[in-house]
């Protein structure tokens, strides 16, 4: 056991000492900080839009539109009476970027609900703001036209609807929104895929390094090949776990620093308060970690075998393809999984051991998985790990001492049988 520990330690220390570990350890939080800064910048809001309201109405409706828009933080509106060349000259102003756009309103607006907005940049935010302001005004005008007291209209409209979203998952109602739950599942799937692939390939290149430098002979005379493979897989797994911890801690740290960051960027601190990590329940984290561990063990055993049967980088790149494709299946299914986590397709993927490490956490997060299904998925994955590791360690054992051409399928089968 002490020997295995030495292998784990070496694998861990040497990986953590590389540039690449720290590049990705830092890149993660930087990306995360980028997202926070981006969100804060967005809340500061694009600059106020200067728009003109081309008033072709014959009553004071155009003036009312300008007044209604004056309450908006995003829009500064100026009334321009309609005339023969007004539209042309405004278009020129828009092209010269002296004006963001212009709104054309006519008498018909309260009757047909039609108006026109022309701008160089049709930002969604501005359009929503315009629509909201116009529809409030139109409702008001129409009601007043039917003799309703203006004060009553204002009172009726002065009410905002807030839709409180709750998710029902496994008998509990949480305040997670649909968007958050989708985002969490999606982010998890991507993270799982990347981590399993990257660290699996790490195991492969580590095996290959020992083979090509011929140090393997000394190692195999000291340790059983299985001990060596075990140490490698656990060591590489510990590195990726460490990576996750760094990311998790720095994400928490950045979130707790969001107010100072916002202040630094000159944004409204109360807005920054609103930025939070999606709330991830402990059970979800546990499922995520369990399936990451399982998926990693399953795939890195295969990657170790690939490394052992190759004698150089090029060969290994070719030989790893079947394993990578197997993992790609889950990756390509992520969208399908997150869109409809309770479909038969999703259910199948979460039971097949080669796809379940990604499919099961996604379905669990989306809340469409019964505990019995989870247990079945775990058991199948466990069995697959035992089986695959058994085969892989036999290929590994023979392969690491081989040099020369890559073995054929027939030879591989013989290795597994006789090793």
């Amino acid at each position: 056991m002490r020997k295995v520990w030495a292998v784990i330690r070496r694998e861990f220390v040497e990986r953590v000492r590389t540039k690449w570990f720290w590049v990705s350890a830092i890149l993660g939080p930087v990306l995360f900080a980028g997202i926070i800064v981006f969100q804060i910048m967005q809340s500061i809001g694009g600059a106020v839009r200067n728009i003109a309201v081309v008033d072709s109405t014959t009553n004071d409706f155009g003036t009312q539109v300008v007044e209604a828009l004056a309450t908006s933080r995003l829009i500064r509106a100026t009334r321009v009476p309609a005339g023969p060349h007004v539209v042309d000259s405004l278009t020129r102003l828009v092209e010269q970027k002296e004006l963001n756009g212009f709104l054309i309103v006519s008498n018909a607006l309260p009757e047909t609900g039609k108006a026109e907005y022309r701008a160089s940049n049709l930002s969604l935010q501005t359009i929503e703001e315009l629509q909201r302001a116009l529809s409030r005004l139109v409702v008001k005008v129409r009601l007043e036209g039917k003799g309703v007291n203006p004060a009553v209209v204002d009172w009726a409209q002065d009410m905002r609807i807030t839709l409180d979203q709750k998710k029902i998952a496994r008998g509990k109602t949480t305040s997670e929104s649909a968007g958050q739950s989708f985002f969490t599942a999606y982010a998890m799937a991507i993270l799982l895929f990347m981590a399993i692939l990257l660290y699996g390939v790490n195991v492969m290149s580590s095996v290959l390094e020992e083979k090509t430098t011929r140090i393997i002979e000394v190692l195999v005379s000291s340790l059983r090949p299985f001990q060596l493979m075990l140490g490698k897989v656990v060591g590489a797994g510990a590195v990726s776990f460490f990576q996750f911890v760094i990311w998790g801690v720095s994400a928490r740290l950045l979130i707790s620093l969001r107010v100072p960051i916002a202040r630094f960027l000159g944004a409204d601190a109360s807005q920054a308060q609103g930025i939070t990590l999606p709330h991830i329940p402990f059970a979800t984290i546990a499922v995520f970690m369990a399936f990451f561990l399982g998926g990693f063990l399953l795939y890195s055993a295969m990657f170790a075998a690939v490394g052992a049967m190759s004698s150089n980088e090029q060969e290994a790149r070719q030989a790893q393809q079947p394993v990578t494709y197997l993992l790609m299946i889950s990756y390509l299914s992520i969208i399908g999984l997150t869109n409809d986590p309770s479909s038969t397709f999703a259910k199948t993927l979460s039971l097949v051991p080669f796809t379940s490490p990604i499919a099961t956490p996604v379905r669990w997060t989306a809340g469409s998985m019964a505990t019995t299904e989870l247990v079945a998925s775990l058991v199948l994955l466990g069995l697959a790990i035992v089986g695959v590791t058994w085969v892989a360690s036999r290929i590994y054992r023979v392969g690491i001492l081989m040099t020369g051409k890559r073995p054929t399928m027939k030879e591989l089968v013989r290795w597994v049988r006789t090793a």
Partner: protein
Amino acid sequence: MSSPVIVDRVTKRFAGHTAVDTLSLTVPSGIIYGLLGPNGAGKTTTLRMIMDIYEPDSGTVRLFDQVGGGRTHSARIGYLPEERGLYPKMRVLDVLVFLAEAKGVPRRVAREQSISWLDRLGLADWRLRKVSDLSKGMQQKVQFISTILHDPDLVILDEPFSGLDPVNSQVLRDTVLEYRRRGKTVLFSTHIMEHAEKLCDRLCIIARGKKLIDGTLAEVKSTHGGKHVIVAFDGSQGSAQQIFADRRLVAKIQDFGQQAELELAAGADAQEILRALVTSGARLARFELASPSLHKIFVDLVGPDAATAVATGGNGGAHA
């Protein structure tokens, strides 16, 4: 006397050929034992079976009078494989500590010993450098330290001199001799007979996976080859070639140009050859009655094909 290594009728087959064929050998304690043979004779395969790298198809290996090969006893064995290698990207000290730990040596001991050996071989300033920064000669030293830093009772060296520069060759020879002085056992393989002749107490010659002869150096010499004469010239060789070609005088000859090793024909008298050489005008630097060199015995035993292989050198014997 106990025997650190007992190989009992081991056989190892690889696809299509038998690398080692019912080979038995016993290495007594406290000596230097040479495993000799041409390339492809099965030396490396034999050592790998002793080290548990290969499992024999049949037969057993016992080390230190216990069942189990090198892996079981890795903390007591220093093994230097024929194809050497270190982790190029690791620091020198870390590699040494790791390799010792993998053998089951406690980390603290491994560290102390590594530092002391690096000091001793003049690599103290290099211990925090990467292995790939070291020259080839320095890497050989590091490899060598990794073999012996845990002060093993048995040292197994596969073609230890191949690729060594003269300085490291000397370090290796000194260490091997020191080991024997301290009562430890050294088993090494080589296809270079000069090394074997200078170092070995006992030896075993194998070819095509089979043992041809084993015993002490003196035993091997006395059982093999008759009377030998070494002749070295100093300038003119006279009509030496005709005299050597006379089958009534010389049974076999190993001609090295300026020097030749003759095996006398049965009943022939060395003095007669001396007289003939002097009469023919040859100038002699040396005329010596000798026991046959190990090289001569080796060539006689394994045949001319193998002798060519030895002359061309290279390192073979590694089968996959």
